[in-house]
Each structure stands twice: as structure tokens, then as C-alpha cells.
């Protein structure tokens, strides 16, 4: 379904004028983007089949893989992100005798930006790359073709559960990241900066708004969709054996990172200006 278009990639390496080559790459990028969006739309429509036992099972599996398997890394990263934030801003604020305000600083930065951002990067690098590698391997060993011949739509059978799992798990994991980050900040505050934990928490809850939380979670939700779409598309359109799987995995991480940065900025702009 998707594979034939990728055959065009073979010709990129032909010796053609570099200006034409750039044009061709742009055309292909748009082409891929369009196809990825079609895949996303199709998988979204299939969410209505979620109640079927098979789909439920697959989705539960993906939720488990996404949620539980990456919890370890996320815990460490979240904790240290909060600690670094507290230390850096705390040291600056101490020069003005304002170190009690690190509560607000850490909380707002975590829930608005760093929580979804860090979670997104970790999930893209761990879960996204794994999805691309798995689907890529399936594509090159003709398993996707076998599904298509059996009239089992890969968008329903493979993409939809992963899309749902990531779109649901990203906000949940982000909440977890936020909590741990804020805790980490509190520990640094009480041990290094002389701000008691209670004062830190009071300060944290006083200035942070609900809107900050919602926007952060909305970001996480969008990041989940981005990661699953990029990973599934790259995986399903893999060609050329093991090398192709490697390329799909690499592309998934790179494109997800870029899109998380760019779209994250755009969402911030949209809601805060």
C-alpha cells in the first residue's frame, strides 16, 4: 500500500543536477507527509473497532510496552531534570534573595515545557524507534504483505493500537514526569538552597495555573500522535532489508525529535501569546 512510493527513493542517488535533486527531495518529503497523514486518518477511523477482543488485546499490549517498559528511564530523567532546574534557577534567585520562588520556577517550567518535552524525547527514542524497527522488520520479511493479502488492514491491525497507546500514555507519563521533576526540585531546594519542602510546595502551588497543566498535557497528547505516526509510517514503508530497518529507525528518532521541538514551540506560541 505504501511501499511502491518508496521505490522512488532508489533514484535519488542517480547523478542528477543538485538543484533538481533538492526539488526531488522536497517533493518526496511532501509525498511522505501526505501518505503519513492518510495513514493517520485511516488509523483514527479504525478506533471504532477498539472494542473487538483482538484490537483490545493489541492495544493493551502496546499500552503496557509504552507505559511500563520506559518507566525506569523516565523516572531518572524526570528526577534529574527537576533537580537541575531547581539548582540553576535557585542559584540565580539566591543572588536576589528570592530562592523561595524556585517552587514556582520549577513547577511552571516542568508542566508547561520540560515535562512533555522530556517525556516525548524519551518515548520517541525508546518506544518510537522500537515500533519502527518492529514494523520495518515485518515489512521486509513480507509479513505486512501477508496481512494485506489476508485483507487484514495494517492500519487497523498494527497502526491503530500503537496510535491509541501512545496518545493515551504520553499524557499519563507526562504527569508522572511532572510529579517526579517537582519532587526532585524540592529535594534540591531543601538540601542545597535552604528552602524547606513545605515552603517549596506552597510556593509551587500558589502560582502555577491549571491552564499550564492542560496545555502541557495537550502537548503530550500531540507528541504521542506525532511519535506513533512517524514510527509507524517509517516502519511500514521500509524497503531493502536490514539496512532499511536501520534507516527507518534512525529517521523515526530524528524526525520525531525535530517535530517535537517545532510543534512544541508552535503550541506554546498558540496558547501564550
Amino acid at each position, binding site marked *: 500500500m505504501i511501499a*511502491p512510493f518508496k*521505490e522512488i527513493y*532508489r533514484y535519488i542517488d542517480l547523478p542528477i543536477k543538485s538543484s533538481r535533486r533538492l526539488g526531488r527531495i522536497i517533493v518526496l518529503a511532501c509525498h511522505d507527509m501526505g501518505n503519513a497523514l492518510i495513514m493517520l486518518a485511516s488509523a483514527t477511523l479504525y478506533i471504532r473497532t477498539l472494542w473487538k477482543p*483482538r484490537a483490545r488485546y493489541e492495544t493493551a499490549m502496546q499500552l503496557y510496552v509504552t507505559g511500563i517498559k520506559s518507566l525506569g528511564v523516565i523516572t531518572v530523567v524526570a528526577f534529574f531534570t527537576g533537580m537541575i532546574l531547581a539548582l540553576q534557577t535557585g542559584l540565580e534567585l539566591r543572588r536576589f534573595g528570592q530562592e523561595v520562588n524556585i517552587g514556582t520556577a520549577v513547577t511552571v517550567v516542568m508542566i508547561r515545557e520540560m515535562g512533555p518535552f522530556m517525556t516525548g524525547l524519551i518515548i520517541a527514542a525508546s518506544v518510537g524507534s522500537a515500533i519502527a524497527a518492529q514494523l520495518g*522488520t*515485518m515489512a521486509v*520479511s*513480507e*509479513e505486512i*504483505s*501477508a496481512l*494485506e*493479502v*489476508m*485483507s*487484514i488492514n495494517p492500519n487497523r*491491525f498494527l497502526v491503530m493500537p500503537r496510535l491509541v497507546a501512545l496518545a493515551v500514555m504520553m499524557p499519563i507519563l507526562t504527569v508522572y514526569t511532572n510529579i517526579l521533576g517537582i519532587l526532585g526540585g524540592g529535594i534540591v531546594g531543601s538540601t542545597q538552597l535552604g528552602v524547606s519542602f513545605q515552603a517549596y510546595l506552597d510556593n509551587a502551588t500558589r502560582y502555577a495555573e491549571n491552564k499550564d497543566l492542560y496545555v502541557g498535557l495537550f502537548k503530550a497528547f500531540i507528541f504521542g500522535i506525532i511519535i506513533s505516526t512517524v514510527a509507524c509510517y517509517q516502519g511500514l514503508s521500509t524497503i531493502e532489508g536490514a539496512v532499511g530497518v536501520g534507516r527507518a529507525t534512525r529517521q523515526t528518532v530524528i524526525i520525531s525529535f525535530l517535530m517535537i521541538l517545532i510543534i512544541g514551540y508552535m503550541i506554546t506560541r498558540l496558547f501564550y501569546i
Partner: protein
Amino acid sequence: MIIFDKVTKRLGGKTVLNEVSFEVPRGETFVIVGLSGAGKSVTLKHMVQLMRPDSGAVRIGEDVISAARGAELERMRRRFGVLFQGAALLQWLSVFENVALPLRELTKMTPEEIEKTVREKLRLLNMEDSMETFPSDLSGGMQKRVGLARAIVMNPEIILYDEPTSGLDPVTSRLIDKLIENLRKELGITSVVVTHDLHSALAIGTRIMMIDGGKIVENATPEEFIESTNETVQRFLEAQYITRRGAWEKGMEQHV
């Protein structure tokens, strides 16, 4: 019933099929032979539109499958069972789940009926004991047999086999040959078999076609095929020590 009409396909800058036309009549076992890379798998993929021709058409009876889309394509594909060259089993499902997959996804059968059907098909292929095993723990030949069980589980009217016996021991190979033969004789199923094994080709085929250099170099009954004057065919026969009628006839009696 499967008709190739001047099918041309270019892949990676090479013309793999060049205006290829042939017909697979209903109820026959049609064998495609050829050297590695000759385009046998590509030919098979055109029959279920896993590839589309650059020009020409592939028809299944009246249906033009090479141009079909959506629900229409699904309807045509349901008539097929396909065994892929690498078996193409889903790695995270057990043998049982792999064979049960089309039944679960496409039929309204109860779990008991599914269990019964899957068991029956796996028994045909001597794979009943490995039902709970995962594909990665099976040998290549065993995976092939599971792939074959999956291909026939929906009782299709046309079955495509991409090298069903490669990687199998001679005894199991003959088992598969017999299975293909029985499907034709008892159920009138149309089979298209890609193989390197000329002994089995001559034993089960009702027609044998050889592809070379993007063209059909021979398309004949087994009897005519070994008498072929075409040089490519003769070289192919000699490479497998088949030179006279007697040799393969004796082989055939033993096999089937």
C-alpha cells in the same frame, strides 16, 4: 482463470517482466520455474496485487485485479491463499494464533470452531505438536509448513506457493507435494507453485512455465517440458540431472 496480459514491470532500473502473457487455467497446478532472480516471486506478487504492472493487466477470470481498489480488491484477494517465500509469520503470535488469525479477523466462527479448524490444518502438515510454539523457535521448514497451514485455512479457491519445499527435507517435501496434488484432485483447487525443485515440478505440475530474462521461454505440459528444445530449459534440466523421460517418470511414481 488467472490471466497475464502483456505485463511489464521494471524494478530498480531493471525490466523484470517484459510483456509477459500467459494463462493459468482453472483447476490446474501451474508450476513456475526459473533461475534465482528471474522474477518468479514478482510474477506471483502481481497475482494478488502486492505489485502493480507498469503496463498490461492481470485478471482473475473477469476481474481485473491489477486495477482493483478498496473493497473490490479485498473481495478478489479473499479467493487466494498465499504461502510466502519466507513464510511471513507474525513473530509475536504463536503457531496456533498465526493460523487462527484470518479466521478470527475475517469470519464469525466461534472459538471452538476456530480451534477445530486450525488443529485440522496443522495436522495435515504434521505441525500439530508445535501449536503453542513461537515462529522464532521453529526451523525454516517448519515455519514454511505453518505458513502453508495459514494459506489454506480459509479454504481458498486459488493457492499461490512461493517455494513451498525449499529448505525442507526430502520426506517432508514429498508430503507437501502430495498435499498440493490432493487439493487439486479432491477440491479442484487452482495452484500456482514457484519452485527450484524440478522433480517436484514434474511430479505435481499440470503445466510448467519457465521465465528467463523477463520473458517466458517455455510454457508446456511436463511431458513436453522435458522434451523442450529450448537451450535455457535444457540447461536447467541438465543441471538437475534430468535428461531423459525415464528418469523423472520413475521419480514421479515414487513421489505421488
